[in-house]
C-alpha cells in the first residue's frame, strides 16, 4: 500500500463528493428542460446541502442509536466504495482491500442501515419504506451476485483492478455476450438500488408512494444532508462502477498526476453520459405499480443468469 495509492483513493473520494450533487442537479435540469420547464439551477443540490448542514439537529423522541448511526454508516460506506472502485487508476491502493463482492456488500450495508433507521422511529411511513426497500433489495441481490460471478469468470478475478485490466488487455471482451448481458442486468439493479424511475420516483414526495423518501422522513438538518449526499454518492458510485467495469478506456494504469487528470476527465464524461441517458429516459417512462417491480428485477436476474451460462460455454 503505497502513499501515492492512498492519495489516489482519497482523490477519488474527494472527486466523487464534489461531482455527485452537481450530477444530480444536472439530471434534474435535463429532465426539466425536456419537460419544457426551466428547472432549478444545477448547483441546487449543493445549496440544499449547505442549508441543511447549517440547521439544528432534530431527533424524534422515540428513536434509538440506529437512527443517529445510520446517516454516518450510509455516507461512510458510499465514500469507502468511492475509494475502492477504480475510477482514476487501476493501481489504487485499496484494490486488494476489497473486491467486487466487498463493494456490493458495502453498498448493501448502507441500504440495510437505512431500512433499520426507517423502522427505528416506529412510525407507519418509515416502516413502509423499509419494507419496500428490503423487498426490492431481496430480489435485486441475487442478480448482483450472479452478474458479478459472470464478470469474475471471464476475467479470472473478482478484484476490480484485475477485471478492468483484463478488459483493457482484451478489448474484445467488452463486447462479448456475457459482458453485455451482465451490463444489462447490473443496469437494472442500479436503477432499482438508486431509486430511479420506474422503480421509485426521485421527485415525488407523496407519503404513501415513495420508498427512499419514506425511510428518511424523520430526518432533518445535518443528518438529512448526510443522507442526501450519500444518496447522490451512491448514484455516482453505481454509475462509475458500471462505466469502468464495462467501458474502462481512459483509466490510468499509473499514478502519474497527468494520467490521473486524463482519467478523471474520462470517468466524468462516462458518468455524465450515463446520467444524462437516465435523465432522458426518465422523462418518457412512468413509475411501475409496486408489485410489477419484482417482474422487472426477475427479468434482470434472467439476464445475469444467462451471462454466467454464456461465460462458461464461451470460456
Amino acid at each position, binding site marked *: 500500500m503505497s502513499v501515492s495509492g492512498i492519495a489516489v483513493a482519497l482523490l477519488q473520494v474527494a472527486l466523487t463528493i464534489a461531482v455527485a450533487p452537481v450530477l444530480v442537479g444536472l439530471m434534474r435540469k435535463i429532465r426539466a428542460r425536456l419537460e419544457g420547464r426551466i428547472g432549478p439551477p444545477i448547483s441546487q443540490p449543493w445549496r440544499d446541502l449547505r442549508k441543511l*448542514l*447549517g440547521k*439544528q*439537529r*432534530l*431527533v*424524534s*423522541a*422515540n*428513536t434509538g442509536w440506529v437512527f443517529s448511526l445510520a*446517516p*454516518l*454508516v450510509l*455516507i*461512510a*460506506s458510499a*465514500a*469507502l466504495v468511492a*475509494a475502492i472502485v477504480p475510477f482514476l487508476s487501476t493501481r489504487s491502493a*485499496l484494490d*486488494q*482491500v*476489497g*473486491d467486487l*463482492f*466487498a463493494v456490493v456488500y*458495502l453498498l448493501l450495508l448502507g441500504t440495510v442501515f437505512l431500512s433499520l433507521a426507517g*423502522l427505528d*422511529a*416506529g*412510525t*407507519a*411511513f*418509515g*416502516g*413502509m419504506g*423499509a*419494507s*419496500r426497500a*428490503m*423487498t426490492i433489495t*431481496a*430480489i435485486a441481490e441475487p442478480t448482483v451476485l450472479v452478474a458479478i460471478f459472470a464478470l*469474475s469468470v471471464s476475467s*479470472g*478475478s*473478482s*478484484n476490480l483492478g*484485475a477485471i478492468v485490466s483484463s478488459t483493457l488487455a482484451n478489448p474484445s471482451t467488452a463486447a462479448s455476450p456475457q459482458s453485455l448481458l451482465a451490463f444489462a442486468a447490473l443496469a437494472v439493479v442500479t436503477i432499482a438500488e438508486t431509486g430511479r424511475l420506474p422503480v421509485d420516483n426521485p421527485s415525488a414526495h407523496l*407519503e404513501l408512494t415513495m420508498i427512499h423518501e419514506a425511510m428518511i*422522513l*424523520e430526518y432533518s*438538518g*445535518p*443528518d438529512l*444532508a*448526510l443522507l442526501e449526499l450519500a444518496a447522490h454518492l451512491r448514484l455516482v458510485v453505481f454509475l462509475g462502477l458500471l462505466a469502468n467495469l464495462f467501458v474502462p478506456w481512459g483509466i490510468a494504469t499509473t499514478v502519474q498526476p497527468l494520467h490521473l487528470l486524463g482519467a478523471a476527465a474520462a470517468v466524468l464524461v462516462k458518468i455524465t453520459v450515463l446520467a444524462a441517458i437516465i435523465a432522458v429516459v426518465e422523462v418518457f417512462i412512468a413509475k411501475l405499480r*409496486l*408489485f410489477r417491480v*419484482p417482474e422487472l428485477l426477475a427479468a434482470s436476474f434472467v439476464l445475469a443468469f444467462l451471462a454466467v451460462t454464456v461465460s462458461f460455454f464461451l470460456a
Partner: protein
Amino acid sequence: MQAGLVALSGVCVALALAPTVLAEPLERATTVVSGIADGAPITTDGVYLQLSGIQAGLSPLLLATGLAVMMIAALAVVRRSRVRRTTRGIPAWGCGRTVQTARMEYTATSFAEPLQRVFDDVLHPEIDVDVDHHTESRHYVQAIRYRLHTRDAFEHRLYLPLLAVARRWGDGARRIQNGSIHRYLAYSLFTLIIVLLVSR
C-alpha cells in the same frame, strides 16, 4: 435467548474482522481429505487475505478501519459548530396530528407482506377479511376482521410427505416383523429354499 443472540453476533463480528484465524484450521481440514486439497486455499499475512488459484483478495480489517475513519470524518464535518452539536427532541412526524398511538406502529406482519405477495405462488397464504355491516346498508360498517395464515411450504410440501412415506414403510415393516418366532423360522426356511434353488 438474548444471550445466545449476542454470543452468535459476537462470533460473527469477530470472524468478519479476523477471518484469518480460521484459515489454518480450514487448511488442515482440507489436507486430511485426499483429492480436495490443492495446496493452501488461502494465503494470508494477517491483514490481507488472498485466494490461491484465482486472483481475489480482501482485507476485512482494513475495510472496517476505512469505514470507521470515514464515519468519524463525516461526524466531524456535521458537528463542526456548536449549534450543530445541540440536539432537540421532537415527536415523530404524524402529518399534523399530534396524537400517535401504538396502533400506528409498523408491524412485523406488514414488513413481510410485500415479499409474501411477491412469492404468493409458493407460500399460498390464506387471507380472510370479514366485514360486518348493518343489514339496511352495506356502507355502514360495524366491524372488520383480518386473518392471515401462512403454512410453512417446506413442512407441507417436503417434510410431511416424506414423513408419511417413512411411516408407510414402517407400517409395512411392522407387519412383516411382528415378533413371532414361528414367522421368523418360516422366513428362514423360504430364504433357504430360494437360495438352494438359485445355487443349484
